[in-house]
């Protein structure tokens, strides 16, 4: 399986190159590859049907428990077949839809990459491996939605989809980490074989909620559904493949996978049921509002996804059975319908339901495909959709919780499905119209073959559900239900209540179809509901965030150096005060008062001199005086050094002070006079900060003086300086020998300073380049 995936990655990155080489023939390898995958998975069928689970593992990052571990069981195989088989058809369809685009190579790149990633999602056994592929599907979806990158709408929609699913991805990551921490297992196999993750575990609730969040965003559940209709900005093959048949079902897949581990609790069931049914209702209601056929399909997809989530939430074997059947049926008919709409769009240039009339005679094969799919969608008798709907009604009616809520959702969406199916199969093709929409050019072979095949498959599965679909579905069922109940699928259950309900649905649904034009003309409450819904909220958040970020950044990074300094210094002072308060003993100055008596007069004079100089410095406005007084302070410091036994330091200080004054004189005396600027505003704030800082430094100094230790370095240097290092001036010996390395760094600083000054003064901006 790893090799299949690797081949997919390789092929996808080769696509642009192949496009250059092969031109339009690019489609051949791109279709053959999914077909080969499909064939490969078919060869695995017998083994899986016999109940075997194929496990493969390759080490990747073993220390983190992230390995390329794959697991092929019934559920995985079902999805893998769906992904690869559907993939082949979509690849073919793409040729008809985008065959002329110069970016075809890139499109195939993203599409194949997506297919591979999606296969990775459904085949992964390792939790984080799944996560990686999951994120990859989000990324490829982003690139595909924004494929028409010139259009602003495409860009914003792509961005929206990425951010919503990306947020979900992060929730998934958090959830998986928590799951891993709580159970200690890294793979689904281990999770399934291990003890059940008990609801009483403290991490159960956060982990479950995070994982649910991830599934909801991916599968476009309320209130995160809004990205899906917007994602219809993508080219139609993408909508058919990613946004109806495969990627959006990744959430359902994960829910089904995790069901045996997390399911069965009240939280699980209630949240899923409530969110699922809400989504179902919302999707169904909004689907009837739109005239853009892709939007209509998108909302029915949302509705169907909601149903699937509710089914997972009902959590009975029957519901899980219904889930699988409905999922398969939905993928078949919805993919078909998307492709049909795309083909219509391609050949007529519009996809507005109100503009499309009487297409049937011109586009016979498409009409046939649409009719097949529509009948399946409406749940008419010999189609697979019928089997799905029967099971759906039965499962919701036997829901252990919120029965009527769940059934109501299923029923309303059933109505909407029938209406939409009538619109798509009957309304735009066969409904009598005075003027039929002109067809610019007939769709090519690759545009109508894939939907037709899919439509036929829907019929085929419906006609003989027990022999074709049932075996695989049963294996999948056993994975998610973790029971060994047999799965019976039959087309005809007899004349039961359910059947009556089906009939009622169809007839009411057809009635609804005739009311559709009116509904569509009433952009009243529902539209407002939509406009004030989560999509609006998203945009508000988006704009608000940007605005807030700007305002905030302007405040924080205002450009005033002194505010920066004040913040930093205050932060330092706070930390220091806290630490001093917490750890340090109080200083006891009384013991050191006697030291005052030892102060000699000249020291005191020097001290007073420095103070006076500083005071003068604070008050003078003259530049030259300031420089002179600065020099005075510096020389006083040198005197202090000399008084306390540091002649080398004193000499250096003296010379450097002189140099500084010289530099000042050299540089600043030629400048025009500086204008005087007062501290102007909030002067006291700065005084406060300065005084606080100064006094803290004094405090620390006094404290540390009290606790100073005699260093063993002093003794060592005293002994070794002459005997081992041949020098009597210990300070100098330290500088050039004991710690000569410091000096090396120090002279480097000097050299760089000289270089920097040279460049600063000589290199003019005019001479320098802009970048």
């Amino acid at each position, binding site marked *: 399986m790893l090799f299949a995936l690797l081949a997919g990655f390789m092929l996808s990155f080769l696509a642009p190159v192949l496009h250059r080489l092969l031109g339009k023939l690019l489609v051949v390898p791109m279709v053959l590859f999914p077909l080969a995958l499909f064939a490969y998975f078919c060869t695995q069928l017998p083994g899986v049907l016999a109940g075997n689970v194929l496990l493969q593992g390759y080490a990747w990052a073993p220390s983190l428990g992230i390995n390329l571990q794959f697991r092929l069981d019934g559920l995985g195989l079902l999805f893998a077949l769906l992904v690869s088989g559907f993939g082949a058809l979509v690849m073919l369809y793409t040729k008809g839809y985008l065959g002329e685009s110069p970016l075809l190579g890139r499109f195939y790149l993203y599409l194949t990459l997506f297919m591979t990633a999606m296969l990775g999602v459904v085949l992964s056994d390792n939790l984080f491996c799944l996560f990686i592929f999951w994120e990859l599907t989000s990324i490829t979806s982003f690139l595909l939605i924004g494929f028409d990158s010139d259009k602003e709408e495409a860009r914003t929609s792509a961005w929206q989809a990425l951010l919503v699913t990306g947020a979900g991805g992060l929730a998934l990551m958090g959830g998986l980490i928590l799951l891993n921490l709580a159970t200690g297992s890294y793979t689904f196999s281990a999770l399934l074989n291990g003890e059940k993750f008990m609801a009483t575990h403290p991490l159960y609730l956060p982990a479950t909620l995070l994982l649910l969040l991830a599934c909801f965003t991916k599968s476009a559940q309320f209130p995160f559904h809004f990205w899906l209709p917007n994602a219809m900005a993508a080219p139609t093959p993408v909508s058919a493949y990613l946004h109806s048949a495969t990627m959006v079902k990744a959430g359902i897949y994960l829910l089904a996978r995790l069901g045996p581990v997390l399911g069965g609790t009240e939280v699980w069931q209630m949240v899923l049921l409530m969110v699922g049914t809400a989504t179902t209702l919302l999707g169904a209601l909004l689907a009837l509002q739109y005239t853009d056929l892709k939007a209509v399909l998108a909302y029915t997809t949302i509705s169907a996804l909601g149903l699937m989530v509710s089914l997972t939430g009902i959590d009975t074997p029957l519901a899980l059975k219904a889930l699988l059947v409905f999922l398969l049926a939905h993928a078949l008919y919805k993919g078909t319908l998307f492709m049909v709409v795309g083909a219509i769009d391609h050949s007529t240039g519009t996809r507005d339901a109100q503009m499309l009339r009487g297409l049937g005679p011109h586009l016979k094969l498409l009409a046939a495909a649409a009719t097949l799919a529509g009948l399946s969608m409406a749940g008419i008798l010999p189609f697979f959709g019928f089997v799905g709907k029967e099971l759906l009604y039965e499962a919701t009616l036997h829901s252990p919780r919120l029965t009527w809520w769940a059934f109501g959702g299923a029923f309303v969406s059933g109505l909407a499905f029938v209406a939409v199916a009538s619109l798509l199969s009957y309304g735009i093709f066969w409904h009598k119209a005075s003027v039929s929409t002109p067809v610019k050019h007939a769709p090519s072979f690759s545009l109508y073959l894939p939907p037709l095949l899919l439509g036929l498959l829907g019929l085929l599965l419906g006609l003989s559900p027990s022999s074709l679909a049932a075996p695989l579905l049963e294996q999948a069922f056993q994975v998610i239900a973790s029971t060994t109940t047999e799965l019976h699928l039959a087309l005809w259950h007899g004349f039961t209540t359910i059947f009556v309900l089906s009939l009622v649905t169809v007839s009411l649904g057809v009635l609804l179809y005739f009311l559709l034009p009116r509904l569509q003309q009433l952009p009243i409450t529902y539209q407002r509901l939509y406009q004030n819904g989560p999509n609006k909220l998203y945009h508000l958040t988006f704009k608000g965030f940007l605005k807030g970020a*700007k305002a905030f*950044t302007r405040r924080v990074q*205002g*450009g*005033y*150096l*002194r505010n920066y*300094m004040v913040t930093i210094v205050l932060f330092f002072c706070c930390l220091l005060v806290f630490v001093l308060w917490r750890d340090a003993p109080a200083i006891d*100055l009384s013991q050191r008062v006697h*030291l*005052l008596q030892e102060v000699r007069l000249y020291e005191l004079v020097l*001290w007073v001199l*420095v103070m006076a100089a*500083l005071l003068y410095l604070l008050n003078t406005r003259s*530049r030259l005086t*300031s420089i002179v007084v*600065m020099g005075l*302070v510096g020389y006083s*410091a040198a005197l*202090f050094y000399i008084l*306390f*036994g540091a*002649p080398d*330091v004193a000499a*250096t*200080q003296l010379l450097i002070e002189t*140099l*500084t004054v010289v530099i000042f004189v050299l*540089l*600043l005396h030629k400048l025009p006079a500086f204008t005087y*600027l007062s501290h102007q505003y909030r002067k006291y704030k*700065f*005084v406060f900060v*300065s*005084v606080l*800082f*100064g006094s803290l*430094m*004094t*405090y620390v*100094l*006094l404290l540390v003086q009290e606790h*100073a230790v005699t260093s063993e370095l*002093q003794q060592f240097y*005293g002994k070794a*300086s002459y005997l081992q290092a041949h020098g*009597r*001036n*210990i*300070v100098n010996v330290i*500088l050039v020998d*004991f710690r000569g390395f*410091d000096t090396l760094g*120090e002279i480097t600083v*000097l050299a*760089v*300073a000289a270089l920097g*000054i040279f460049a*600063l*003064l000589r290199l003019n901006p005019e001479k320098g380049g802009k970048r």
Partner: protein
Amino acid sequence: MEILLPFMIGILFAVGLYFMLHRHLFKLILGLILFGLATNLFLFVVGGITRSSIAIIPETEEVATEPYADPVPQALLLTAIVIGFGIQAFAIVLVRRVYQTLKSNNLDELNSTDKT
């Protein structure tokens, strides 16, 4: 003197910082220099100051005779002074250059690079 010097250093720090918080470029430079001076003195005093003899081994001896000033802070201080000089020199030139190029000595006017 050990007890008086910390106060002087504290005041030096305070004045230095106060100048650094000034919006005048020239005051900023004065502040940097004063702050550097305060830092150096801090290092000197915190290493322990004595009036005992300087850290030079007399011609007659082979090892230093106790008591002698701890040479380590002095050596560190020397390094620090020189490094500080390099940086201060650069800063002075930078200020001059800023004044020359931007025609302003008001720090509050130098906030174009932070604009969002």
